């Protein structure tokens, strides 16, 4: 049994009085202990929705309308509020996108760390503070002792994200869900923070779901990739395999758009068009209006996810090589 098994997950939002639109349209994934998965896609593809639905934290009025999230065989979506709280921040932690708004501005770093420990462990204040200092040192925060009394606004963005990572690690979780953990940071510290997350996950054998739109980061950090488009998984498989030989035209397009793959002095490649909003999805494969391989079949039917890709006309690698 896999550690985390998501089965046919649908997330719906109300539209008007009666109707609903789906932000996730049936996503499945499996994650083993210590495995690192990258979830890639454009904004609005449903990546964050997937991340938040694992801990049943979808913002109202959205709701999980179908499917299950099994953690060690236990469906998290059916747990009582009290039981899911025992999982949140304890066995599964999250790192949010923008450290400038993740920490509460009116509470000290110490308060925000200690309260997490106290929610999950019977621990004295002194012992909790000691553990917090140890974790702050682990994420390489200078003069950790004095930071406990500091407020978030007294720290830089990079330091704040380190604090968030330290909070995520406080309870020695089995899984960390990182939702674009470096997107809001300066380019110069993005690599540092990513390297830190990778190092800590490896050392402690923590599984990671890394949500990002940056294929470059995924290639360095993760073992498996899931590429999402308009609320569906369009391709999944081992990271190196997909990067070297993508089957879905969308994956191929994303890879082609990376600056590393463009020749010097040439224009960067761009996938034509933009992703449709979830309120106005085209029939059939949602990608077909942007796809050069699309046929009448693509306009009529949603391709099933088979052999790791959801496409009627996958790119054949012999063809790609020519």
């Amino acid at each position: 049994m896999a550690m985390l098994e998501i089965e046919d997950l649908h997330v719906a939002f109300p539209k008007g009085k009666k109707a609903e639109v789906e932000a996730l349209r049936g996503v499945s994934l499996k994650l083993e202990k210590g495995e690192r998965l990258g979830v890639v896609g454009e904004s609005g593809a449903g990546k964050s929705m997937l991340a938040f639905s694992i801990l049943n934290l979808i913002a109202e009025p959205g709701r999980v309308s179908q499917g299950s999230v099994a953690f060690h065989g236990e469906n998290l979506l059916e747990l009582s509020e009290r039981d899911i709280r025992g999982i949140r921040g304890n066995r599964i932690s999250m790192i949010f996108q923008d450290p400038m708004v993740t920490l509460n501005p009116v509470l000290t770093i110490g308060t925000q760390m200690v309260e997490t420990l106290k929610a999950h462990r019977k621990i004295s204040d002194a012992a909790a503070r000691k553990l917090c200092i140890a974790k702050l040192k682990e994420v390489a925060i200078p003069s950790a002792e004095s930071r406990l009394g500091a407020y978030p606004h007294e720290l830089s963005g990079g330091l704040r994200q380190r604090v968030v990572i330290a909070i995520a690690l406080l309870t020695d979780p089995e899984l960390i869900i990182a939702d674009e953990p470096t997107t809001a940071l300066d380019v110069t510290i993005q690599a540092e923070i990513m390297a830190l997350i990778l190092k800590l996950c490896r050392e402690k054998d923590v599984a990671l779901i890394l949500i990002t739109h940056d294929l470059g980061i995924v290639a360095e950090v993760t073992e498996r990739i899931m590429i999402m488009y308009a609320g569906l998984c369009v391709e999944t498989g081992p990271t190196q395999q997909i990067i070297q030989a993508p089957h879905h035209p969308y994956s191929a397009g994303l890879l082609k758009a990376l600056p590393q793959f463009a020749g010097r002095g040439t224009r960067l490649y761009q996938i034509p068009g933009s992703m449709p909003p979830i309120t106005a999805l085209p029939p059939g494969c949602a990608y077909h209006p942007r796809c050069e391989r699309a046929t009448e079949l693509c306009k009529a039917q949603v391709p099933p996810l088979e052999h790791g890709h959801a496409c009627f006309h996958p790119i054949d690698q012999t063809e790609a090589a020519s």
Partner: protein
Amino acid sequence: MHILAFLLRRSVQAVIVMFVISLIGFSIQDNLGDPLRELVGQSVSEEERDLMREEMGLNDPFFVQYFRFLGNAVQGDLGTSYFFKRPALDVIMDKFPATFELVLGAVFIFLSLSIPAGIYCAIHRDSWITRFIMSASIVGISVPVFLTAIGMVWLFGVELGWLPAFGRGDTVELPWGWETGLLTWEGLSHLILPSVTLSSIMLPLFIRLIRAEMMETMSTDYVRFAKAKGLSTSRVRYVHAFRNTLLPVVTVGGLMIGTLIAYTILTETVFQWPGMGFLFLEAVNRVDTPLIIAYIIVVGLIFVVVNTLVDFLYTLINPMVKLPGAKS
């Protein structure tokens, strides 16, 4: 150290504000009619009136009169009430405890109701109780305070006869000369209707403000992160969300104290509450110019002091705001 710097800075600002208030307050005196007509009867001849004007300095140029007034004012002398024939400041300070206790009662009522109601309405957005409170608050905002006051007098004072709707009742004098109505049941029962009326201006406004701010903080990332950390619902709501809700509420609340004092004039008049506002309206009717000016200056001072206190309070709950002059 930085508290002293803050107080010094605010004192200088306060002096400037008070100077402007005194100038405006004093300049209305020429526009309120002839004080001589109120002071003396019809029998006094025109020559005698001129003589009195000269003696009282009413014929001097405006700025000569103003600086004479200002010179006395900084020594605590705001003139002598024409009607009471006593120092205007003394007359007002006699009435200050009544107004202070009325405002205190109103603040107590609207804070103890608006905070729980606002939080409830933010959390249970679609319940019928929320819908009822929200609709009622619209009505509450729209009804003018004198109508509320008259309605209260009619219903609870006249028809039901549950509560007194006239005056302050018995008061107890505290050692430092403060007449309080808070220590006897009779005094308290007299306080209920006027303070409920006065709080009715603020209550609907504050419920809506707290609800809106609470809803906003509940949807922030740090509240979501607090949930993702596995904290209890009450800790997420009251420690993470509500503390941030308080920031704008304190700011608006500070400004509202001024409005509250302004509305004491109406409330005190309807309930014959022997406070500063009632006194002020009487002074206007009697063209008791020194008393009117003294009232404006005392109320201005209360404004300045309250706003300084609010700013100070704000720095205590918002760590991002440093008192001016504090070391970073």
